[in-house]
């Protein structure tokens, strides 16, 4: 199936894939507004269920990747993702036993929280302007896409466990 040495890197690989898909260009305007934060969904999942393989370092690295690809100030997404991951870690025990639908809502809120942090920092750096449709749409899109994305992650996780 998959080389054994790659198995522990599955969370990292899914995160890099998430960055590439998230920043993918599709010639469809609706996609722009309803583009989910795939990186945060992946971080959320792996942080809850394999925290030993998905630490702050991955949040930092994937954040830097997003910053570079979108030409945001370097460190902005890294900073806000770490803040969100810290919050997820703080409530991890409760979230692990929560209902899936509740988790979906939490993911949407977490994304909006991350966007809020980014907006606050960007307001200081270059003024309060933002693409607001994208800002709010991202939270909704993340909640909508969380189901299929998490299903995919569970499938990958199962492969991992079976291999082990």
């Amino acid at each position: 199936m998959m080389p054994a040495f790659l198995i522990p890197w599955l969370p990292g690989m899914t995160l890099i894939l998430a960055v590439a898909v998230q920043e993918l260009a599709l010639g469809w305007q609706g996609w722009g507004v309803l583009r989910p934060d795939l990186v945060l969904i992946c971080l959320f999942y792996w942080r809850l269920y394999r925290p030993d393989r998905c630490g702050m370092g991955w949040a930092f690295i994937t954040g830097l990747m997003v910053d570079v690809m979108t030409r945001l100030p370097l460190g902005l997404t890294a900073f806000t993702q770490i803040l969100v991951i810290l919050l997820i870690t703080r409530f991890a025990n409760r979230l692990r036993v929560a209902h899936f639908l509740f988790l979906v809502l939490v993911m949407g809120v977490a994304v909006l929280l991350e966007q809020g942090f980014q907006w606050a920092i960007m307001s200081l750096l270059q003024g309060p302007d933002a693409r607001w449709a994208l800002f709010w749409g991202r939270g909704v899109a993340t909640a909508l896409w969380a189901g299929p994305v998490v299903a995919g992650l569970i499938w990958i996780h199962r492969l991992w466990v079976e291999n082990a």
Partner: protein
Amino acid sequence: MDSFFSLFKQYRHGIVASTLLLTAVFLMLSLHTGAIGFRAVQVFLLDVTGPIQQVLLWPREVYRWGAAGVEEWVAVHDENVRLRQELARTRFRRGRLEEALAENSRLRALLGMPMARGYLALTAQVVGSASSAFARSMVLNAGETDGVRMDAVAVAPDGLVGRVVTVGRSHAVVLTLMDLNSRVPVRVQRTRAPGVVTGTNDRSLVMNLDERPPDPMAIDGIATGGNQNLLNLEFVSKKAPVGMGDLVVTSGTGGIFPRGLVVGRVVALNPQGVGLFQKVALAPAVDFDRVEEVQLLLHPLSPGAGATVDGGPTGEGPMPPAARESMGLTGGVAPGR
């Protein structure tokens, strides 16, 4: 020593998180995007994620290729007839254009002006676009190996898209006109009034209604909010004649953008403005949400520049006439800067 390690172990998560947060803040405040070390990181990350995006776009390309093939097959007869007619007309026009070109050369020589320098063109596909609410950039599937260099100008058939700000081995990032950090020197085509077009990041441009011009046409054009996708035209003198619907083109000053590329049209203006300048809003000529391919105009002096504007080894064929017209390119040579 042992107690130090046990303390570190106990607060490991907190220490790691604080270190990374401080590093992120340090990067945000200290590193500007043009720093040498930062550029190396950008190039590396671009080369890692770019190919993944290209693979992911493969189904779309197959669909587009198939759909285009079917459409072309259906329309081939009609197109053939139309093209024959057009060819006849074009032969006549070409003669006139060649005459005009020759006349232009003669007049330039008379004026003692240097000949316009030609730009080389390279077609690149947009494989990524910024998902952030705070940036407007695109990732292209052409990089250093294709001859792309920093500040290469990106254009679409409708007009100017932006300029290359990061170049990887096989991918590059374009800062679009819509980005807040974009600045393009321009002129109003009709009146030659100079100005600078700046990005708004889709910010709603609210013109002061109390100061609106008496012209009812202008009132219709006033942008009052929402996701407008408009550009700012700044530093236009209050005395400069600017009207609704005026076309705005690049001025060629600044040394990056060639002269005459279409930027957009005036859709809102307030001649009273603030201070010394008018408030003018432009609708960009390019629909940035629908750009799938761009032409990169490469300066011929930059090493490794690939194809000519008429297509070549790295180009994907001749540039469409509409594109050439909108870009002000005639006879394979762009107007001088």
